[in-house]
């Protein structure tokens, strides 16, 4: 189990790193001369490429973050392991839901 979680965390990190760089690069590039909601929506609406890009981002983040947080909570608190697992699974679910909802909203 720990090994699978370790692999899942590292593999999602490898995917997230380039995605995050592209996302930040694009934001910096797009923000020059101000940024409006219309501008953003013009870029994203109906664009399946961006929808897939950000869906992948959301899925990876929803896997990656809870695994890391699980370690942090286990190290820094005395919360029973089972609670920690339940808590981070919930967090993953929330991240996934909110993230995909946001992707759908601008598609």
């Amino acid at each position, binding site marked *: 189990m*720990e*090994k699978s*979680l*370790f*692999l899942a965390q*590292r593999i999602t990190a490898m995917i997230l790193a380039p995605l995050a760089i592209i996302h930040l690069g694009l934001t910096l590039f797009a923000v020059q001369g101000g940024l409006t909601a219309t501008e953003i929506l013009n870029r994203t609406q109906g664009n399946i490429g961006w929808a897939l890009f950000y869906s992948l981002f959301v899925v990876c983040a929803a896997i990656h973050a809870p695994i890391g947080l699980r*370690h942090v909570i*286990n*190290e*820094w608190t005395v919360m029973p392991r089972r609670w920690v697992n339940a808590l981070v699974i919930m967090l993953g679910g929330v991240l996934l839901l909110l993230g995909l909802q946001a992707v759908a909203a601008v598609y």
Partner: protein
Amino acid sequence: MSPTDTANELLKVRIWRGREQGRLVDYEIETRKNQTVLDVVTEIQHRLEPTLAYRFACRVGVCGSCAMTVNGRPRWACRTHIKNVVTDNTLTIEPLRNLPKLKDLVCDMAPFIETWQKAGAPFSGTATRHDKPAAVKPDSAMRLAADAALQCINCAVCYSACDVVNWNPDYIGPAGLNRAWTLINDVRHSKRELTFELAFGTGGCGSCHSHGNCTRHCPVELRPSESIAGLKRAAFSGLPEE
């Protein structure tokens, strides 16, 4: 000791007395030209504090029993020259961190030894006494990997240096995981898969932060953090092959 041994300066030594509850007690002894931390503790026990408890056996860096915290860092007392560690003419000597304190400088080593078992340490042979000894090529990748991680003297210095051991009571720690790495690189070990599973189980190598304090402090210059990195890599690549 002849009078010429001494430099006539007084060394201030603060030593932990007691168990979990205890306090630092101040002593003063003469500074000598050539003096290890173990010499200092021994001299204090012989001359000033007969009830002072500490451990040692070989006095030459082989047995691993003399580890203690010296000026905040875990060290082997018998091979640590005070001139390299003394600050403001003072030595503060405490028991190792991360282990239960039994008396003065003596800790209970049982939890440390248990982590070796937890990491799948017992060797289990593939052959019987009637078989020929296994031929292990000295230059095979596995043999070289194991070689680099052998020679641990079980001193628990790395275990004491590791912050994750301090934070996470389940963590196996550097020495146990280093041992597991030597075993999964040993073709004669019949339970390589099991050792790998245990080394990657709860509190296994996935919990290591790779900050390398173990490697920094290991007195025999082993590199437990590298062994742990090897275990992590094996999660991607599978068990090492000859």
